[in-house]
């Protein structure tokens, strides 16, 4: 009896410890989420004094029939499709390489070097890369000029999104590298030794030992970068403002413009929920595909 009392007291105090976080979490995440959901079924344009008015599915219908919504969705999707595989595989490659660097302080140096860009705020990184990418006096075109090349990095429809992906790779790869590196260190050396004795080469050791043992971490990194990539905004907003010809106007930017430039709160909320839905669907697919068999 006394024992169970103690247990109850214990859980109670546990919740008490959680209260500060839960308070912030619910007031800045849960409540706005519910409010946003309610708003997505309302017409609320703050340019007019009319209060929010319930309109059912009208906002969702408008989005699904809107050329601009699908253009923005497709731009986002193209970004995810390019960025996620490139960033994850580069991170994996870099971390495997770093894992081979045995001198301890040299490894920390490289690790820090890869991680540093992640610490730069997007406004700084965006402006920096906009200058790198400049047609006339940018760093990249200055190098390429030696071969007589001039790449319209951010000004040509077919190139702009790829340039954004390249910049994102530089900016975000460090985070995933650190996670992979930590996971690689968890794999016991004996496995590799045993495999070597059995005659497995570098590639086979990677394929049959490293990859399977990294699977949970890989799943985590892939899902997190899919979620992050669907929410891409800062890079495109800082570097192209969605241009040229809206080819890099991603969903979050379109939602931002709808809400805070055109003041259509209900419609913006509906599009946010559609984005959330897309992220949820793709995350679930990933979990299914990569679940431990």
């Amino acid at each position, binding site marked *: 009896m006394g024992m169970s009392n103690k247990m109850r007291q214990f859980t109670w105090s546990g919740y008490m410890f959680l209260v500060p976080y839960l308070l912030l979490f619910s007031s800045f995440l849960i409540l706005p989420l519910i409010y946003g959901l309610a708003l997505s079924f309302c017409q609320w344009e703050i340019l007019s*004094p*009319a209060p929010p008015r319930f309109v059912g599915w009208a906002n969702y219908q408008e989005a699904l029939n809107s050329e601009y919504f699908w253009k923005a969705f497709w731009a986002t999707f193209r970004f995810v499709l390019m960025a996620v595989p490139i960033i994850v595989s580069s991170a994996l490659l870099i971390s495997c390489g770093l894992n081979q660097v045995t001198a301890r302080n040299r490894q920390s140096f490289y690790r820090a070097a890869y991680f540093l860009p992640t610490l730069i705020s997007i406004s700084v990184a965006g402006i920096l890369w906009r200058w790198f990418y400049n*047609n*006339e*006096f940018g760093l990249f075109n200055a190098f390429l000029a030696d071969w007589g090349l001039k790449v319209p990095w951010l*000004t040509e*429809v077919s190139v702009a999104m790829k340039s954004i992906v390249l910049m994102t790779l530089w900016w975000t790869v460090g985070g995933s590298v650190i996670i992979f590196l930590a996971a690689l260190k968890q794999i016991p050396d004996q496995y590799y030794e045993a495999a070597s004795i059995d005659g497995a080469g570098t590639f086979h050791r990677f394929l049959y030992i490293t990859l399977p043992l990294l699977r949970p971490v890989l799943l985590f990194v892939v899902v997190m970068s899919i979620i992050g990539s669907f929410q891409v905004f800062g890079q495109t907003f800082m570097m192209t403002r969605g241009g040229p010809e809206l080819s890099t106007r991603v969903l979050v930017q379109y939602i931002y*413009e709808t809400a805070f430039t055109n003041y259509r709160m209900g419609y913006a909320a509906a599009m946010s929920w559609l984005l959330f839905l897309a992220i949820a669907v793709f995350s679930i697919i990933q979990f299914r595909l990569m679940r431990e068999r």
Partner: protein
Amino acid sequence: MRLLRLYRVFFSAAVLFSLFLLIVVVGCDRPSDHVTIRFWNGFTGPDGRTMLGLVRQFNQDNPDVRVLMQRMEWPSYYNKLFVAGLGQRAPEVCVIHTDVLERFIQAGFVYPVDNFLKGEHGIDVNDFDENVWKAVEKESKHYALPLDVHPLGLYYNKTLFCEAGIVDASGNAKPPINQQVFIDAALKITRDLDGDGTIDQWGFVYTWFRTNVYAMMAQWGGPIFNNEGNTCLLNSPENVQALQFCVDLIHKYQVAPPPENYDAWIGFRQGKIGMAFEGIYMLADLEKQTDLDYAGSPIPKLGKVKATWASSHNLCIRSDLDEDKQVASWRFIKYLTDHSVDWAKGGQIPVRKSLRNSEAFHSLEIQNEFANQIPYVHYMPRVPYIFEFYSEFDLAIEKALRGSATPKAALDVATENINKVIERHKRLFSESRTHGDEQ
């Protein structure tokens, strides 16, 4: 022991600091003998320093009023200003561009200044150009005091003009005044300097598509909306012709670089461009380029009439102020326009004719050239959904200039979409009116 001493030092520092804070806070809180006016604007560049100087001067000359200025970046400025208005926390005085003014008027956030025009601190409205003063008018009320006017004008590279032999009798570079001379000059300047088969010196370049093309549309005389403002006429034949001319400069005459592969303004600064249309506000940027021999002139008449684009910074007063604050705000904004010659030095043109006739303004050469256009400048259409209009307009002309759609097709699509926006707004405001009646 040493640690303890360190603690003591820290502790006394903290106590002293809190005392200091307390004094400051209490000091600010004492009943004031002056009216405080908050003043918001987006002058984050060098113009901000000029404005701050004017504000300080005003505070010195008017001990009974204290103006606090806050600057923020233009791109997010109007979002913040509007939301502050909704939350009843807008500043007493703010700067609003002419094209955005309509949505603030419609939301009821700005106060008409007509009551102040006569009387002790009055102002002679005939001192404003008619089109500039009309641009802040709605239903015969005026909702702002214009501070300046910044038209689009022609900047040209004198060195390239002289090299190409485009000079007057005394050998000075001669800016074009009509379409034929303009195209001739552009053709002469456009050259492949190093003989590698690609052109590296261009006669003309598009800077900001929006203002450049809008000026041409104004010159061809095309309407953007009908008189009632409820139908978009962006695809009218005149506008299509104007846009076609703009496209022709790139694809037919080949005197302007295709926009996807050129940084226009940098090119002009580097001396690789003969002519560019830009706002007077870019002058400060050019003045930094000491190795460039440039000049300014009105935009040549390329279409049917003389016209160019312009906008103004307008000084607005919040709508729900008590009388003391209203009067103080008015005195402040009048003071700013009275002193707008100083403001003009940073690359603006004072809006009042009397100031433009002053000695101080006559010494500003390019400002004077650009100012000659003021009688025929065109402001952007005044509609509350201006940003939605811009996104359609910008997309259409970008597509046309890049050659991914014909001018007609691009403008047709934009017109259709803008008309949808108008429909939505009509529904919205008829609803809000019925809502207002219920109250």
